[in-house]
């Protein structure tokens, strides 16, 4: 072996991928959630996200533990079951310059947390919200969640007899501005989606099918590795050019649509068999409903809108983070109190 080790590879801000590593996972070997953590590390590294500028939010569940397994140099907050959206909203309001990334589960989101989820989507708060969706409550040992498909079977033979909630359809309907579905087993698609998510300033909602190898990976499950591989239908082929890479890639405007993201990056959506327009909200909801009836799992960018105002715009927030405003700004002068008192005399 040669004596001089090669300098470690670094990203645009000079950090190596090791600067994005997390703690050692305590999830089951083969759990889909672990693959998602790895993609988050890759995306943050490749996009040059400053670790200290990232905050990792989660609720409760196996999925919600995963923020401990990526980017240790970022603050993390493991909140209460189903209520991460409100905590994440508070964090974003206190400091709108942070990149807020939330990890939730299908139970955490679609069962106990559906109320907060819905209202988060409505506000178009800049956040990346990831559902690690395995159709069951992993941490409480495998009961069905509200995303389990009708007729899906548990290992114990129990059949799910209620229809699933489609979190993507909900998110699109309610006002999220970047909505996608992916599969923990599809490295490339998931990584590209995450990089695009980092470029977006609005609510990003990605439902990642993430099989639970311990409780929901058997014959009869619709969230098993095998089932998802067999039924995965990407709606487009994704390409992504980050804003700091000045490369011109040739593409055919007839078959490829380009979306300019808020940070100047370019997201390329290349047509596959079907003609899917990810900027058409009504059509997206229609196609999702149809594909569901056919048993297809549509993946890719389901909806993107870079024009809608986000929650900070709506609140007319000042430029400096609220949590960092000095006393001279947040405590009005004595004259203000005197005026207020005079009005009450």
């Amino acid at each position, binding site marked *: 072996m040669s004596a001089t080790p090669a300098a470690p590879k670094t990203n645009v801000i000079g950090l190596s991928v090791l600067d994005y590593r997390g703690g050692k996972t305590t999830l089951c070997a083969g759990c889909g959630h672990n693959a998602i953590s790895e993609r988050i590390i890759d995306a943050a590294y490749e996009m040059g996200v400053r670790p200290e500028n990232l905050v990792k939010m989660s609720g409760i569940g196996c999925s919600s533990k995963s923020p401990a397994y990526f980017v240790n140099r970022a603050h993390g907050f493991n909140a209460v079951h189903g209520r991460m959206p409100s905590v994440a909203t508070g*964090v974003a309001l206190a*400091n709108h310059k942070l990149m807020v990334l939330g990890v939730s589960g299908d139970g955490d989101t679609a069962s106990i947390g559906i109320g907060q989820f819905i209202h988060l989507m409505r506000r178009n708060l800049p956040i990346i919200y990831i559902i690690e969706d395995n159709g069951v409550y992993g941490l409480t040992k495998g009961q069905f969640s509200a995303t389990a498909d009708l007729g899906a079977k548990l290992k114990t033979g129990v059949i799910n007899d209620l229809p699933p909630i489609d979190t993507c359809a909900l998110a699109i309907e309610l006002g999220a501005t970047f909505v996608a579905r992916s599969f923990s087993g599809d490295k490339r698609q998931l990584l590209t989606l995450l990089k695009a998510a980092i470029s977006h300033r609005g609510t990003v909602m990605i439902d990642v099918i993430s099989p639970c190898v311990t409780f929901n990976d058997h014959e009869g499950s619709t969230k098993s590795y095998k089932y998802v591989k067999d039924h995965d239908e990407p709606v487009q082929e994704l390409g992504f050019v980050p804003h700091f890479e000045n490369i011109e890639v040739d593409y055919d405007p007839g078959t490829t649509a380009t979306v300019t993201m808020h940070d100047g990056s370019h997201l390329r959506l290349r047509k596959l068999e079907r003609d899917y327009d990810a900027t058409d909200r009504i059509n997206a909801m229609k196609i999702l409903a149809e594909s569901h009836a056919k048993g297809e799992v549509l993946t890719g960018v389901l909806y993107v809108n870079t024009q809608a105002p986000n929650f900070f715009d709506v609140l007319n*927030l000042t430029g400096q983070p*609220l949590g960092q405003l000095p006393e001279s700004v947040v405590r009005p002068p004595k004259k203000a109190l005197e005026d207020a008192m005079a009005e009450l005399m």
Partner: protein
Amino acid sequence: MATLDVTLQEQATPTAQTGRNVNDFSIQVATVNGSGSQSANTVLLRSIFQMGVPVSGKNLFPSNIAGLPTWYTIRASKHGYIARKKEIDFLVAMNAETAQEDVMSLVPGAACVYDEPLNLKQLRQDVTFYPVPYDKLVGPVCPEAKLRRLVKNMIYVGVVDYLLGIELAESEKAVARQFATKKKAADLNMAAVRAGYDYAKATFTKHDSFFIERMNENAGKIIIDGNAAAALGCMFAGVTVVTWYPITPSTSLVESLIDYLKEYRIGSDGKATFAVVQAEDELAAIGMVMGAGWAGARAMTSTSGPGISLMGEFVGLGYYAEIPGVIFDIQRVGPSTGLPTRTMQGDILSCAFLSHGDTKHILLLPNSVTECYTMAMEAFELAEQFQTPVFVLSDLDLGMNSWMAQPFEYPEQPVGRGKVLGADELQRLGGFARYKDVDGDGIPYRTLPGTAHPAAAYFTRGSGHNEKGQYSERPDDYVRNVDRLARKFDTARKFVPAPVKEISHSSEIGVIAYGTSHWAMTEAHDQLEKEYGIKVDYLRLRAYPFNQDVHDFVKNHNRIYVVEQNRDGQMRELLKLDLPPEQIAKLRRVLHYNGLPIDARSVTNEIVSQEGK
């Protein structure tokens, strides 16, 4: 609806009025809500206030938008007593549905101005009646038929002015103020006041004994409700994130705050230096406060009992993960929906221990609009100093009623942000352990997300953690952590607002009260001494945890009466947990819990009876 379902009246002690009563009586206006009587009542209150007579006003209203009985009581007191007076001396009966019962509950010697068609005269021989034909009087002053219902109310202001000797010019001033931006409305309403005054002057010979005479007690004072006062406190505390879900009686706190923030906290660039979010429910409201407090904002929410119940899980997280936040609880009558528009001190225990597991929370207990203002600021200081949720327990009586006060003082203390490490300090220290007791006071150091240092980050969780914030289920880590939290709570004893003591003589009887019970207590204090020769020492609690003064006070007296507005003596229970066993037996209960603000007579009678006099 049966009259019984809606009546307010309780049994009053029948003490007959004799002679001339100057500036020491209560007026009650009985109307239906939604009839627009609020402006008239405010004008009446302010007219007396401007006459220099100490006055307080209490709105006793239904949980309804229009058509149910409402009572507004005004108390004039030359002695400065501002608690509710149990006896009603002067009634303005406008509501057919309750009129009979309202009249029957008057004390002998009382007076009653009523709407002529109600025909109340024959009900009592010992009450002076003044019938007023409102419908006939309102026509000429208010040509527009649809406004008459509202304007009618101003007529009783004029009648009462004449009968009590309130100067018409003062009502004129109050009307002008009430309709400051609406000249036409001001003119119309003033004409109605005058019509009432002229009618009364031409028609009535005064037979009752009640008079308002000019004093000089109110120079420079303000009138404000506790919620608006708290809102001012929050703004001057530098609040930046406000979340809420509407609920009576807390709503007006945030609504006032929004008005103040819009007026005083929009920067020169037109941008807001605050965020107010109407959340989807109280769970989200407190969740946002936790997130914002964790990330370095001064964050608050305001609610009432039902909201407090919903917030339990998050408040436990705030306690255990050590996150600052301020929660206003404007208490109303529970349990459940209870009496949403009536007052109670009913959330003492649920707030003190909110959430599962071993939790204890700092409670601040304002008794006045002034303390609503100052304690709002103290709450933010304490929340950041102790990195924990802090409750401010106001109540409906304090929050929604009008109280006189000296103008508030500008805060002298700079805003304190507690033990927060920045990038430079981390560089110097080489890192930190989030939950380590470095200073021996139980309060650890924290960092804020976004701090530009590789060692700044830590992981916040509601699950078990060690000093470094790492996940831990080790028995020793758990015990060390919760024992430190207990130590931190002990440290807080010395920093929360200290009790106020009135120990003027060596009595063996001590009384403890807090919040709005104070006003009945101070009056009862005088009644006990003057009428029964019972001298008591008094301690007013202002916060939990209790400090040494409270222990000493109990120790130094033989009997302690704890005066409060709930059924179970919640503060007494809390005191019992703090006191040594031999002191506990001294604690006695004086309780008032029918939803109406506590009055002095009830306190006096109860203490007298327990003293066996």
